[in-house]
């Protein structure tokens, strides 16, 4: 049959975080849906929304709800058609025997976080706990967690599947204390699937097919993690296998958390979306509210029955 050439732009380089898409491609699920799909990695300073909006890529696994809001506000013609990480994928970490034992201790602590979205999660957590952040010591976080390990920083931001693994390796999990945003009333769903509006209008069936194939790929990856990790190690042989195994386990938890636990993978939980949206409006990151209904389109993912989007 005639396959339609399309591409999926990831938010980062190949790693277990994205293995479901590689699995679907390896098993031919995209071809079954009439798609000849190329998986393009991302990189720093490469914005998935941008590439999808200009038509350079068809689909994108973009930063998260926050970057989708920004794109919509700037008028980029894209729509979110599914959310991968149902809850905030990062946590704030302090030392178990350190000065920061509860959220109130953040007040006098030195904290680093990524100023690429994670900072608003932190602000939201502080606000929800009545902590005034105006004269707190919050600094941008660099690639490395070493300043935290060395004790120069009290609180560090970590993705649950990446930096947290490094921290466990270097400090030991028993010596770490986690502050999970959801425990403090804040949630930022991330790793959003997006598509260009024109493409979605012209080829709704292909979008539908893409979602179906992707879901199947992910379920296969969860079902046979050994094979999934093999696949990733083939894509990026210099990665460390134990880390990737840990990553897949964590990603599975995040992808099946919240509303997805009931409704299945890639569910768009509009409650979580609007709560994240509200935080960004409150902090004037967004100039004003955006039309969430138009920006988040559940029709494609909802067309797949929940039973088919959940592991056996």
């Amino acid at each position, binding site marked *: 049959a005639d396959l339609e050439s399309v591409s999926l732009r990831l938010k980062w380089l190949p790693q277990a975080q994205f293995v479901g898409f590689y699995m679907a491609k390896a098993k031919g699920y995209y071809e079954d849906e009439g798609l000849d799909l190329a998986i393009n990695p991302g990189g720093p300073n490469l914005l998935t929304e941008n590439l999808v909006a200009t038509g350079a890529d068809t689909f994108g696994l973009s930063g998260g709800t926050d*970057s989708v809001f920004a794109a919509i506000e700037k008028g980029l013609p894209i729509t979110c058609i599914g959310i991968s990480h149902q809850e905030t994928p990062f946590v704030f970490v302090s030392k178990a025997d350190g000065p920061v034992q509860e959220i109130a201790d953040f007040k006098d602590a030195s904290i680093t976080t990524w100023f*690429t979205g994670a900072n608003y999660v932190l602000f939201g957590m502080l606000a929800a706990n009545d902590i005034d952040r105006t004269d707190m010591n919050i600094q941008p976080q660099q690639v490395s967690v070493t300043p935290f390990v060395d004790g120069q920083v009290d609180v560090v931001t970590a993705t649950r599947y990446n930096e947290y693994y490094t921290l466990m390796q270097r400090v030991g999990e028993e010596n770490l204390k986690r502050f999970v945003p959801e425990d403090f009333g804040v949630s930022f769903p991330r790793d959003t699937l997006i598509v260009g509006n024109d493409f979605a209008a012209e080829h709704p069936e292909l979008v539908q097919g893409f979602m179906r194939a992707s879901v199947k790929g992910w379920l296969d990856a969860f079902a046979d993690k050994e094979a999934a990790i093999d696949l990733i190690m083939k894509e990026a042989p210099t990665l460390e296998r134990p880390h990737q195994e840990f990553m897949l386990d964590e990603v599975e938890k995040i992808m099946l958390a919240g509303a997805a636990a009931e409704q299945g993978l890639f569910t768009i939980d509009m409650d979580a979306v609007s709560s994240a949206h509200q935080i960004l409006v409150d902090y004037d990151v967004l100039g004003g509210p955006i039309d969430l209904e138009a920006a988040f389109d559940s029709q494609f993912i909802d067309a797949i029955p929940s039973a088919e989007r959940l592991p056996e």
Partner: protein
Amino acid sequence: MTQDPMSPSPHALARGIFGALALFAVWELAARLFDLPSYILPAVSEILARFWTARAVLGEAAAYTLGEALAGYLLGGAIGVGLALAVTLVPPLRKVIVPAATAVNSVPVVAFSPLILLWFGMGVSSKIVMVAVAVSFTMFVSALAGFDRVDERSVNLMRSFGASRAAILWKLRLPTALPLILSGMRLSTVRSLIVAIVTEMLGAYGGLGWVIYQAVIVIDFVQVWAAIFVASVASLGFFAVVSLLERRLVFWR
């Protein structure tokens, strides 16, 4: 002979400005004609307008970056010239330092960035070090070529006057090397800013690179371009100042 096409014409400045204006005009026209969205290519007018509205942010960032670039530039220049001096004064060092410097320079500076960010933190010091690394090799090569250019006969003349090594260095080698050192410094100006900006994009507390990084995150490409324009103007200014200094100091050509 007909007029020499190599020498500058009296219209050089006007032509340069004309070229820039022509480019801006084509750019503006293209952006408007094809109705390009700003995430592809914003119109020049839009960028210039942002120049003004964001002048506080951009000005502060430019000062931050220029400060880093300048510090790294001076440090790198000192290291480069210092190494060249060491090699000149202690000839056996040459066999060690020249290949080592070549190897270090063969690695793109960005490859060192994670290490330097780790060793020197996210503040200005890591930027200064990165700029210094990038600048020092150029300066080392230029200064060494300059010191090597010294006429052995002039050295002998100085010796016949009873001059010490230090006197020869100060009164002869350094001035002889000055033209090449300064042309190396002129080339390094643009590079020092670029390296500062790129390093800021990998992690910083401020500066043009930081502004660009933030702007990319919120898909504000007008801001990105405005920051680039500022960087270009700053580079040209830096370049011009050093060129002027060069003309002042190397008056004998």
